[in-house]
């Protein structure tokens, strides 16, 4: 009798304890829930946001979604090896070299419209993924250099070929201390 009683007490006590802890944990799970970044967002943060479509997707977000769904990570030429390395770290896969089928890493460029040749057709405005081209029908268009991602998408639609991709000039603040590149006069 005492034995049964003891067993029952123990079971009851453990049951009550389990219930209490269960409730505490359940409450904590709701109350202290950590909002983790969904994977797509994290990938999108790494991608360079040129929205150039060289990866074969219409923008960086769709490619981020595709990577999350298992696509290759080496399809982004503007990001280059740096982006691939970061993506590899995030996805826990091996870093590969850039897929040549999607283009090669290039120096940073911005679009420049030769304004006296522009006929004002607005085709480039429609093509620009980041609204970096200003203008109206039959008016001259121009590129807002600070907003241009250098995606190249405006070059093809231009019927008079008046858009150039100009390399971004180096200035003192973006200079990378490559002292060796400075010419020093050699005397005799």
């Amino acid at each position, binding site marked *: 009798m005492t034995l049964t009683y003891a067993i029952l007490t123990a079971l009851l006590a453990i049951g009550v304890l389990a219930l209490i802890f269960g409730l505490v944990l359940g409450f904590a799970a709701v109350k202290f829930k950590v909002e983790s970044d969904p994977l797509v967002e994290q990938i*999108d943060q790494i*991608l*360079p*946001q*040129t*929205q150039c479509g060289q990866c074969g997707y219409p*923008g*960086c*977000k769709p490619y981020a979604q595709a990577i999350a769904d298992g696509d290759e990570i080496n399809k982004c030429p503007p990001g280059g090896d740096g982006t691939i390395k970061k993506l590899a770290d995030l996805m826990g896969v091996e870093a590969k070299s850039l897929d040549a089928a999607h283009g090669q890493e290039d120096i940073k460029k911005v679009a420049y419209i030769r304004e006296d040749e522009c*006929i004002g057709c607005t085709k480039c405005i429609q093509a620009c*993924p*980041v*609204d*970096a081209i200003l203008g109206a029908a039959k008016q001259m268009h121009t590129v807002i250099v600070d*907003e241009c*991602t250098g995606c190249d998408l405006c070059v093809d639609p231009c*019927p*008079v*070929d008046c858009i150039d991709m100009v390399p971004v000039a*180096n*200035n*003192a*603040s*973006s*200079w*990378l*201390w*490559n*002292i060796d590149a*400075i*010419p*020093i*006069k*050699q*005397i005799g």
Partner: protein
Amino acid sequence: MQNNFDEIIEKLDNGELWDFPGGVFPAERKTLSNQTPIQKLPIPEQLYVTVKQHIGVEGHLIVEVGQKVLKGQALTKSMNPFAVPVHASTSGEISAIHKHVSAHPSGLPELTVQITSDQQDKWTQLSPMVDYQNQPTMQVLAAICDAGISGMGGAGFPTHIKSSPKKDVDFLIINGIECEPYITSDDRLMREHAWQIRQGIDVLCHLLKPKHVLIGIENNKPEAIEAIQVACRENPNYRVCSVPTKYPAGGEKQLIQMLTNREVPAKGLPVDVGVIMHNVGTCFAIADAIFSGKPLISRVVTVTGEAVEKPGNVWALIGSPVAHLLAHCEYKQEVQKQANIIMGGPMMGFSVTSELVPVVKTTNCILAATDHEVAGNNEQACIRCSACADVCPASLLPQQLFWHAKAKELEKTQEYNLFDCIECGACAYVCPSEIPLVHYYRIAKSEIRVEQEEKQKSDKARDRFEKREARLIAEQQARDEKHRLAAEARKQAMASSGNNSKDKIAAALARAKAKKINSSEAEHKHKEPTGVTLADQSEAATKTDTTASSSNQRVQAAIARAKAKKAAAESTHPKSEPNTKNASDKLEEIKIEEKQLEVKQHETPVEVITEQPSKVEINTQADNTDSPAPQHQEPDKAKSKQAKIATAVAKAKAKRDAQKRANDQDTTDPVPATKMHNTETDTQVAPAKTEEQQIDMKKRRIAAAVAKAKAKKAAENAAKSKEDKSS
């Protein structure tokens, strides 16, 4: 725990100081240049005033090329709190505003105002503010900003911003340490202008209201200490502290630590620990600006090193090329194996890329050292001796930073607090392997900065992309909604009007049918060749095909077919019709010419023409489209890009041609002969081309080229006729 104010004062009263970790004791070599008074220099012929000489934003240019400026006249205007203006250092004319090699390690060209001196050195009108104590603080700050004063110790932080802190200031520290070897500009300035420096300190005290003023001077400058002590004797609140000589005691954070034992937090500012620090040179400039109204247009520069004959300190106008200073001090280039001029000291300076690099507000020294004075680049592998860690004044781990910086592990370098490195060069100085450590840190720092900038830019791009997508979707939805509403309205209208509308439709259909029957009847009759519809034309062409018997006629028929097709295509795109009046005039002329030629060349039997009156019409019409064709080809049909370009070019040419003709008509009476000539040349090419067209319709590009040539020729002819007329 931060030391409180009274404790610090007590300790200072006892003549004691604290210390900072690390530090090195390089050979001072100051006696080379500190023995002679500061000399005045002749005014250089050309001055190169860099528009941006400080940390922050550059001012807005308010002068233009060719303008005469007076000494002290502002060249830029500050439009931003972080912008300070620059001024003309002497009177003269602005000969250029262009990109000139800058006083930056990269030597990258920056926007510069070049002034050709008139050697008169005539001042502009100055407005001193002697009663600054009665003026509102904002006014005094504005005067300091307008005088273009930015920190003259090193970084060049705008002084007016540093002088308007948001927090209480315990200590105003005046930095007269000048710990770097060779440099003596502050030393000489303190010896010779102690009084004016004190006046500058007075102004700063008025602005900052510090509890106490500490003037830190290294104990290797006893004359300077004495001079300042004499100047500050009247004010018990000003304390001159003789600081033991140790490099880099002149670093802002290091000096604060030495004098107050307070440590400036990482990413923090001195004001966070209740301290503001100014350089003695800045105090001098402030006094100049307030008491005589003079902007910052000159500064003391030490020209030293064993490669100059007469080392010493000079008053250099801001914008003087380095070569001017060196010439005055008799620089001997031959003693250097390789021309090497260092701007700044041997520890933190950089080699200038050209002798035309101008003196800027932060230039304190020009060092022309012989080869045995500066270490060569003889980098060897790190042996992990940790000597660098022992001397680091910021208590960093230079070795670890070096590994990670070299391996481009930028995140790791940040974990080791790369940005707390003050780039003093003590680590590189003691390195037995002669590794240029600071150089690696600078590369890593700039890479991190660029990466952060790119991150910001990509965030902005993402934002813009997403907003654009949202806008496009919203527009699409709005359109769909509009269409849906319109459709509903139509449906409702139909329902409400009931059978009535159905009757209308039926009536319309009947009308259309009747019309069709009528037109087909007309087609059979061919009574009006000029009014034939397009369908008629093509049908007529087919008819020609069947009736024509001779091979000549067959060829003609084929041409006609092709042309009819083209004409049909063209008339479906009425937009591509030439819109200039002159062009259409030309068209008419060509039409007539063509008709005549057609008849002559092919010697077609008259019966054929009379039987098929529409044929000639087709021919001539189609020819018309051929000869000026490329000028107004349908963009839809010309799919290839090149063809598009050709069209655009040809259009432009035709326009120009038309304009020229209009001009001709304006200036001279229209000469029919010339016009005839033009059209003749046009038509001469035309028949040859029709052959080509027969072979391949797609050879429009060639046609475009021919058209271009024609347009050119026409233009030439027009010009010629003009000349003839005038002669």
